[in-house]
């Protein structure tokens, strides 16, 4: 956690708006025939009913950040979505975190930093929570933007509060802008925090996920990045399997000497492992012999139903190739 945020987290989180302000929520201006009370939206009647209304509140990271009532033994608590929008009425009694995502935060691939489930595909207009099939760190900023000479500076000033910015690309003639972050969770936070906000007072920003950059340079860069990530990951895996093979040496091992020889020089890499991928380490428990047995045993532990043969069914469940 960065020092500034760690300092801010020492004080209790403040209540962003009072309860009265929240309850004064009125119906949005009518632009359809039927009002959907679940989504708070009008629908039907044709025309454009996806007008984004201007956000009334905005998060102030310096003032609003603070500790909340998150139980200490909870693993990976999520961030408060209402905090990101600047409308959390609970303040220090909130059950979620009131801070921006940090580099060492980790959330599963299938949810975003607010704990909302992702989908397999993006929505057609690229809005919403996003997809679990690829990591998207870039936001598209559109809507009724006004691009003046200091637009780039304003974007930078507003968006760098939510995380480390990788790149900003303003496209003047298309009246839009792209912002990419170092971490995906920061992009998720910024998307919610800046949705419907304005830079000059008259404009409204609409934020969506960006499509893949078609620029050949960017594509090349992404490919290199993927290779780098995969390489790091392989190293991490190998160090895990190394630990395994050493355990097996003590046991009557089936590994031939040649394999052990290959794996030994990888020891140096263990020290270089990044803390980001701790979750991988937890999976491999070096006490068991092979991976399939490992999972087998765990099922036996919790199943406790003698009529089912877990071994048999597991082979069915995991490995349709064998036998």
């Amino acid at each position, binding site marked *: 956690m960065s020092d500034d945020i760690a300092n801010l987290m020492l004080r209790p989180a403040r209540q962003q708006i009072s309860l009265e302000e929240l309850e004064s929520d009125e119906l949005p201006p009518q632009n359809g025939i039927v009002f959907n009370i679940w989504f708070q939206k009008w629908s039907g009647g044709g025309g454009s009913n996806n007008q984004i209304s201007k956000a009334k509140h905005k998060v102030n990271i310096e003032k609003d950040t603070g500790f909340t009532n998150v139980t200490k033994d909870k693993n990976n608590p999520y961030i408060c979505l209402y905090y990101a929008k600047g409308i959390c009425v609970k303040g220090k009694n909130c059950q979620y975190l009131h801070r921006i995502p940090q580099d060492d935060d980790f959330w599963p691939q299938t949810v975003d930093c607010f704990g909302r489930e992702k989908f397999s595909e993006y929505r057609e207009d690229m809005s919403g929570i996003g997809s679990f099939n690829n990591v998207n760190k870039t936001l598209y900023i559109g809507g009724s933007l006004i691009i003046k000479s200091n637009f780039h500076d304003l974007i930078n000033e507003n968006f760098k509060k939510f995380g480390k910015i990788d*790149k900003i690309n303003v496209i003047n003639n298309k009246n839009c802008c792209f912002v990419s972050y170092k971490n995906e969770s920061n992009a998720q936070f910024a998307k919610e925090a800046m949705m419907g906000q304005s830079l000059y007072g008259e404009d409204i920003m609409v934020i969506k996920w960006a499509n893949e950059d078609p620029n050949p340079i960017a594509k090349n860069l992404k490919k290199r990045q993927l290779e780098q990530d995969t390489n790091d990951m*392989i190293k991490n895996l190998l160090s895990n399997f190394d630990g395994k093979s050493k355990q097996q040496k003590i046991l009557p091992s089936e590994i031939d000497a040649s394999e052990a020889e290959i794996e030994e*020089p990888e020891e140096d890499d263990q020290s270089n492992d990044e803390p980001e991928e701790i979750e991988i380490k937890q999976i491999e428990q070096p006490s068991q012999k092979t991976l399939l047995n490992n999972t087998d045993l765990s099922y036996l532990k919790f199943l406790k139903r003698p009529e089912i043969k877990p071994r048999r069914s597991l082979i069915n469940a995991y490995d349709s190739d064998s036998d």
Partner: protein
Amino acid sequence: MSNMEDNEIPAVCETCLGSNTHLRMMRERDGLECKLCTRPFTVFKWSTHKNDAYKKTIICVTCSKQRNCCQSCLLDLTYGIPIQMRDAALKMAGVDNISGANEPKNEISKLYIADNSERFKSIGGASITGNSEKAKEILTKLALISQNKNSNPSTKESRDQLLPDHIDKIDVTKIISKLPLKGSLNPPNDKSITSLFIFGIDDSLPEYKISDFFEQYGKIKSFNCQHRAKCGYITFVKREDAELAAKKIPKPDDNGPGLLIVGGIPLRVTWGKERELGKSSGEKLKVASIVSKYIKKISKLDSSKMSKKRNLKQLEYMAPTISEPKKKQSKMDLNPEVSTEVKKVIYKSTGKSLEL
């Protein structure tokens, strides 16, 4: 479609199950639609700790079998890595005979593949990691590959991509003439200038790495970083901070731009009032091409100077190469002081060689 046998046990990885050996699970038949194939499936719900939120399976057994991934976290069951990365890693290992089908793209083909699980037994590299012996074999292969990569790290080739004609034709002389490319890190007389001009920003260098460096010297008012144009302006709130930062940047040449290396990429820094860096992306690209050409020139000059300081003998050897940038200099109109110094160097070296 889904047989009853599948409904008994979920295919879930150890991380999702947690360390507790006694686990209570809830089961709901046809509780949700599978996130991949959109068919209803038996949902399992459980909590690993007292206070933790419930975990649940989000894809059906058929889909998880086909991809060899956990039903809850979608990570590979054998390695515990994202399945996209697994397939990338297998490609790197040069596994040609991935028998699996490709990941289906549209909804109909997803349904079709899930319904015909007999035909499509595995998708991507699932057949390899699903088999423990094969998985081990691949891992040793990967070990060798990553070792080889470590021994000779792939050097980034500086590809000079030719600009397309329509961009090459764009006239950017007005923009270029206002850029302080020939400037230096000596504080300018105009006290209102609080910004530094940075050029040579590579696409792979993230913005935060540059601003992190400058933030240690004072508060930054704005940072206009244009990766397309390969340059940017960083403006400090206070003039003193900017002067302090300028002092800390190493200068290969007293009257030339400073050389700052961030993340392995050399950046050039000078003082300069903030100016336009091009409006359209075409203009920016053209500016970038001119800037990168200029950087090559000064880096040649600098390297020659460094060697002069270090060793005169080396310089003798380099003398013919120095004369080349000198010719180009006349075109670019470099700092006159720099060029005279270079001339002196050449004179010295050639004079010495004549003596020999």
